């Protein structure tokens, strides 16, 4: 995917590494249905070290997402589409109402 918005991706990673997580802010992590990749199967002999590195980084980054706030919940949408708000707006609305009720 072309980076048409001129994001400095390398700098962004460094910046986010130095940011605080969400503490106790009410937080909903809404994944698309089946949105979590299961990297259980190895990629054969091609680029095995690269594959293992990517797999381990992915597993860790997903685990880290679940520790961002002490007041969080994880939900899955009814759609497998990435644009959940477009294909399943009702779930997004439900989760926003949940957050509004937390305040």
């Amino acid at each position, binding site marked *: 995917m072309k*980076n048409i918005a001129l994001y400095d991706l*390398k*700098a962004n*990673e460094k*910046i986010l590494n130095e940011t605080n997580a969400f503490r106790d802010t009410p*937080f909903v992590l809404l994944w698309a249905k089946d949105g979590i990749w299961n990297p259980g199967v190895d990629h054969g002999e091609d680029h095995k070290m690269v594959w293992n590195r990517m797999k381990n980084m992915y597993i860790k980054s997903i685990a880290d*997402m679940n520790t961002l706030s002490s007041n969080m919940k994880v939900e899955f949408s009814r759609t497998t589409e990435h644009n959940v708000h477009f294909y399943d707006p009702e779930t997004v609305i439900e989760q*926003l109402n949940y957050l509004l009720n937390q*305040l």
Partner: protein
Amino acid sequence: MSKIQILSVNSKIWLLTFLIGISNGYAGELNKDIIGRFDAGGIKLHIECYGSKSPSIIVHSGFNGYGSEGHWGAVIEKISQKNRICIYDRAHLGKSDKLSKANTVNDTSKQLHTLLKSVDVKPPYIMIGHSYGSYPVRAYNHLYPADVVGILLIDPSQYGQWSNRIGKWKPETEKYNKSQEADRLEELSY
């Protein structure tokens, strides 16, 4: 056809038109309280806000995406009846000003902070981040923690995802072909 039958047919046509109007809901004109390009600190960004009640909900779009694309209509239609909801176009995208150099999530956050001041949308905010939108949400939350009272991340980019991509290719550990290297460079190019 009798007069009663004609009236009945006309009634059905009106009813059908009315129902289509309802089902299209957000496809029609929503009551935009704020719409336009406003100062975001030396740059003008496009923003649209609907509804009025606090806390305001601020939408951060995904990678290369922008608020004015029109993907949020159904959410806006419902939520704006209760709370204010704003979509905006990050710099260099959609109806916002172009940039002359690369930008970071801190730039984005500071611009949004100024933009929201410009349009008098005061905190507290609930931040929504879709996909890559999770990045500016986290940066904004770090820079202005008192402003953010709730966070919804939708199928988000995981934090660290791009260092994964950046760190993927290490010549000292494995060799790669030219097309793979070209793909990587295109993804990271700007």
